[in-house]
């Protein structure tokens, strides 16, 4: 059974440690919700987990994961504040690019583009340029990106910002089914994600 291990992790923002000695372990099928006020280091933690920021100390590792992967971030989807989609290209071209570029991690496969668009409730508008969509629709399409290529670990930074209540529920459904398939989800959020049981981690901000 795959396990994501985080041991005594700390990271710096400028001079000070924004968090320190964070440890947790997540098994397949478990979710972690990271909460805390603005500036408490939620995004920094997620970026460290995604391998985009250097940790000051500690390590992130994967136990019993597929062989041939050095870092957990190679097996992760990262949904940040920005959607990582090109405004000039159509939704279909965007999703198709990420599907081919990301490829599937061992142990699963992504669903096709039309099914992914339908899963986020936006079937039938994939021929439009991404820039034509509203902010909420863009966010939904960025979520569809999580579905077109399989990654066991999802790292989500405020996934439901700019979304209406219906999209919130829809997203909770996507996360729940990902967990049911043995995935791992780490999400930073202000609202509750509406998923059954999840571990929580409360961030407090700069440690002086």
């Amino acid at each position, binding site marked *: 059974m795959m396990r994501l291990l985080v041991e005594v992790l700390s990271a710096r923002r400028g001079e000070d440690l924004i968090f320190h000695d964070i440890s947790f372990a997540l098994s397949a099928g478990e979710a972690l919700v990271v909460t805390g006020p603005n500036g408490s280091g939620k995004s920094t933690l997620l*970026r460290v987990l*995604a*391998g*985009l*920021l*250097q940790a000051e100390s500690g390590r992130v590792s994967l136990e019993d994961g597929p062989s041939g*992967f050095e870092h957990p*971030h*190679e097996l*992760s989807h*990262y949904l*940040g*504040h*920005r*959607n*990582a*989609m*090109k*405004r*000039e*290209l159509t939704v279909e*071209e965007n999703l*198709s*690019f*990420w599907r*081919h*570029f*990301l490829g599937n991690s061992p142990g699963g496969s992504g669903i096709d583009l039309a099914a992914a668009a339908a899963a986020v409730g936006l079937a039938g508008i994939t021929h439009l340029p991404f820039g034509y969509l509203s902010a909420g629709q863009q966010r939904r399409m960025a979520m569809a990106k999580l579905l077109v290529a399989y990654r066991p670990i999802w790292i989500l930074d405020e996934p439901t910002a700019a979304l209406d209540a219906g999209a919130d529920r829809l997203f909770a459904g996507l996360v729940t089914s990902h967990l049911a398939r043995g995935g791992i989800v780490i999400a930073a959020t202000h609202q509750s994600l509406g998923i059954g049981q999840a571990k929580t981690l409360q961030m407090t901000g700069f440690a002086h």
Partner: protein
Amino acid sequence: MIALFFRDLKLSVRAGGGAMIGVLFFMTVVSVIPFGVGPDLNLLARIGPAILWIGALLAALLGLDRLFQAEREDGSLDLLLMQETPLLLTVFVKCTAHWAATGLPLVVASPFLGLFMNMDELAIGATMLTLLAGTPAITFIGAVGAAVAVALPRGGLLVSILVLPLAIPVLIFGVSAVYAAVEDPAPFLPPFMILMAITLFFAVIGPVAAAAALRHSAD
């Protein structure tokens, strides 16, 4: 990787893409020279290859700053950095796509602009060949500058200034190869071989350096 190549190609020809900007700039620079220099056909023919090369160099530098900055602005760079695929391969593919979209049109446009400069067939052919061999080097050198300046909001001119010293050898050997082809005593091959060596050298060094710079630009 092929998907990345075609995506970048598509992006550069869509609205807001930089593919045509380089060629238009190249045309502007070269077409005003005869008006400035005057109707001395021999002089134009003599300085033609140099003018074409300078124009192509500046045009090739023009759109380079967007190579990684556009990816960073919409968050795509994060995902490119996270993958199992070596980053330098990703950078290499992005460079080749950028060259195909902006460098290749310069090579194709150069014969027509050569006519403006009263160059003969041999000089035009030699210029085209040296541009074909030399412009990829400019892209690979520029990628390093673009990666270093990726987080700077007004990095455009800075990238050009950063990479210009490294691009000077390309210009020197490109132009001297053309003159060697046109004037009899000087041999064509040695400068042309050095030009190709420079391109191959930067095709290796450029992506490695750019990948290292991108890794450390993360915030």
